């Protein structure tokens, strides 16, 4: 079975919510919509305090090249535009809407029928995706329409669908594949058309045999879509690792996947693309996994953007008393949050609740030069050396060690028997080297 070659680790999978069907969450009374929900520039509000809005109505616009539109997830009144705490732990600008019912914009097709026929042209597809505010739903939140506009001089040869879900605990993509398989397939077809490619590979790790079987069967009806089961290994969901695993091409250091003719999209994004293009529905809701070893009902919720995280936790049976850490995302790359009053955003794939005893870090001891971090690094770096540059305050040395290649997957810290904060130190070196390179360009 295929997988990537260099490095990788095997964290405990803990996919305890895999059997929980996607459940729609009741509408919240108030939604908080942060204006920074994608990579790039924050969106600019197009509504004012006191305005009435409908569900699906544009409320903030992406005006820069890399930015995205935001739509109201409920109908109601804009109560204020203010700084609010978001998942980053900082207070940032957000639109707050008091919900009054759920009245949708009438151009959105809310019928349950699946719509397979593709009438739109390439340009129209990309425009719809852009208008609908679709961003990468795997967590990176890169605006999807930007990825579909292949830069001049480059050519897309194939589409890669990331359905790996290599993070432990998370199951939202898994459930989407099982329950929205047909829509996902059409979404993939749309993305293929937008990129003018006739080949798509769907990479699924083999710990989801039901999803592999289901999509493989559906793919029989869709020419050019190949579903591949991959050997379970973290971080296979890293796009460079996934491309290597599926078609054995290596994206050169510092370059994007398009360099080897690939565009990578998440499977959840493919579903959102289907809804945007076929149903004219903007990205106002997503599937969020709420899970943890002590959680009463580990669940996968279809939830409107802007819903407070506390509402999800309540629906999953409440926050267990021993909770010591709440992770936005998976335990390998997710970010710990400091409050349950933050809103669900486009990039939130799951919430993992960890008991207090697991939330604590190991006591740090000396590096014993076991080289496990070197073997684990999927980018072929020497994590112990890079981390050392920031420990001794000589981050500039990290540039030659190719710190910028680091994908921050955390395999080094995961595997370190001395519990050393390798990734933290590498991140600091990475930031510093980034500054050095930018100042050199001036």
């Amino acid at each position, binding site marked *: 079975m295929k997988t990537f070659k*260099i490095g990788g680790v095997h*964290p*405990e999978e803990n996919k305890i919510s895999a059997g929980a069907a996607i459940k729609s969450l009741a509408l919240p009374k108030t939604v908080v919509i942060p204006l920074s929900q994608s990579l790039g520039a924050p969106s600019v509000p197009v509504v004012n305090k006191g305005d009435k809005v409908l569900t699906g109505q544009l409320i903030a616009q992406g005006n820069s090249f890399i930015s995205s539109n935001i739509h109201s997830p409920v109908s109601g009144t804009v109560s204020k535009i203010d700084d609010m705490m978001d998942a980053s*732990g900082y207070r940032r600008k957000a639109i707050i809407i008091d919900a009054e019912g759920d009245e949708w914009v009438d151009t959105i097709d809310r019928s349950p029928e699946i719509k397979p026929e593709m009438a739109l042209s390439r340009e129209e597809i990309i425009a719809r995706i852009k208008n609908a505010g679709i961003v990468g739903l795997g967590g990176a939140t890169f605006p999807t329409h930007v990825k579909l506009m292949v830069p001049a001089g480059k050519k897309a040869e194939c589409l890669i669908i990331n359905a790996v879900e290599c993070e*432990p605990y998370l199951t939202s993509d898994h459930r989407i594949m099982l329950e929205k398989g047909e829509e996902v397939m059409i979404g993939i077809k749309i993305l293929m058309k937008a990129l003018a490619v006739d080949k798509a590979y769907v990479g699924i790790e083999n710990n989801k045999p039901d999803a592999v079987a289901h999509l493989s069967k559906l793919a029989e009806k869709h020419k050019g879509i190949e579903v591949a089961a991959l050997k379970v290994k973290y971080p296979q969901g890293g796009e*460079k690792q996934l491309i290597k695993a599926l078609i054995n*091409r*290596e*994206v*050169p*250091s510092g*370059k994007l996947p398009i360099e080897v003719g690939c565009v990578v999209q998440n499977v959840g994004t493919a579903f959102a693309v289907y809804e945007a293009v076929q149903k004219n529905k903007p990205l106002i809701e997503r599937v969020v996994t709420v899970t943890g070893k002590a959680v009463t009902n580990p669940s996968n919720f279809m939830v409107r953007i802007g819903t407070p995280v506390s509402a999800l936790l309540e629906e999953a049976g409440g*926050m267990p*008393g021993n*909770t*010591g*850490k709440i*992770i936005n995302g998976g*335990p*390998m*790359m*997710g970010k*710990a*949050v*400091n*409050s*349950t009053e933050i809103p669900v955003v486009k990039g939130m794939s799951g919430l*993992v609740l*960890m008991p*207090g005893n*697991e*939330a604590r*870090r*190991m006591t740090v*001891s*000396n*590096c*014993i*030069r076991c*080289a*496990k971090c*070197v073997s684990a690094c*999927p*980018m*072929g770096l*020497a994590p112990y050396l890079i981390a050392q540059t920031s420990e001794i305050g000589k981050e500039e040395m990290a540039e030659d060690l*190719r710190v910028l*290649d680091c994908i*921050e997957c*955390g395999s080094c*810290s995961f*595997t*370190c*028997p*001395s*519990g050393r*904060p390798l*990734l*933290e130190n590498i*991140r600091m070196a990475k930031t510093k080297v980034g500054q050095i390179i930018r100042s050199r360009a001036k």
Partner: protein
Amino acid sequence: MANLLTVSGSPHVHGDQTVRRIMWGVVIALIPAMLVSFWYFGIGALLLTAVAVFTCLVVEFLIQKFLLKEPPSINDGSAVITGILLALNVPSNLPVWMIIVGAVVAIGVAKMTFGGLGKNPFNPALVGRVFMLISFPVDMTSWPTPLVNRTVLVDAITGPTSLGIVKEGLAKGDSMSDIMTQVPSYAEMLLGNMGGSLGEVSAIALILGGLFMLVRRIITWHIPLTYIGTVFLFTGALYLIDPTHYIDPVFHLLAGGLMLGAIFMATDMVTSPMTKSGMVVFGIGCGLLTVLIRVWGAYPEGVSFAILIMNALVPLINKGFKPKKFGEVVKNG
């Protein structure tokens, strides 16, 4: 909100490897070899092992507590390994005070001087052994014959090791066939029924420990295999050139400290290279040096010196043999 939430950088989970698990894993891997040494050399072996381990722990504890003023970490198992390896490297009738000196040098000089676990450039047990070998050459090279009397501490009946027999025999000008009648059979050598250090005896027990470490992912195959392979090929080539002057390669594998060195000492993660390619270079270097010393050097055995010399080259090897980077070679396939 009732709970205070921990906020820390990712990753939020950790694998099952810890320093303690690794170090105690090595101790477990050493148990078969220790048992064999107790079987063949009796109470003397037991005493030396106990004293060596105890001394290592005490010295490390005292230095950490009173000199470095850091919380002692002797329960991490690394000092226990040094103690056991030190004992496995000496003859069973070595005066007890000598192994205490060796242990003080191993931990006090070779390990703690550099800052403790992970910072020492040389394998502490080997430094201790070589210190003893140079300081007490007679006691360190009078090897009791195994199984003669397990209950006495200092055995009067001593004899040379297999490698010593060969070296002396060749020096006297004896024919190889004469020499071969004096060394133990290969079956005896595999089981460990021959003169030598506590741990130089049974290849089977040492390989068993090595397999355990491989399964537990404490070591990889790279160093032991390239080390042993190089010794085999090098001595094999010599044997093919002149079988009357050079003993056969199987003998070289089973005799002396090669198995102990290749499996337990050269693989010491602190003092070996960080990349697989570096480990291969390291293993080959150890193998070449071992044969050079065994065949042409003044000592009959060269494992300790070979590994120590290669230890010194590790920083250079790390500089020269970097990990294979992703995206360096562009392949379109």
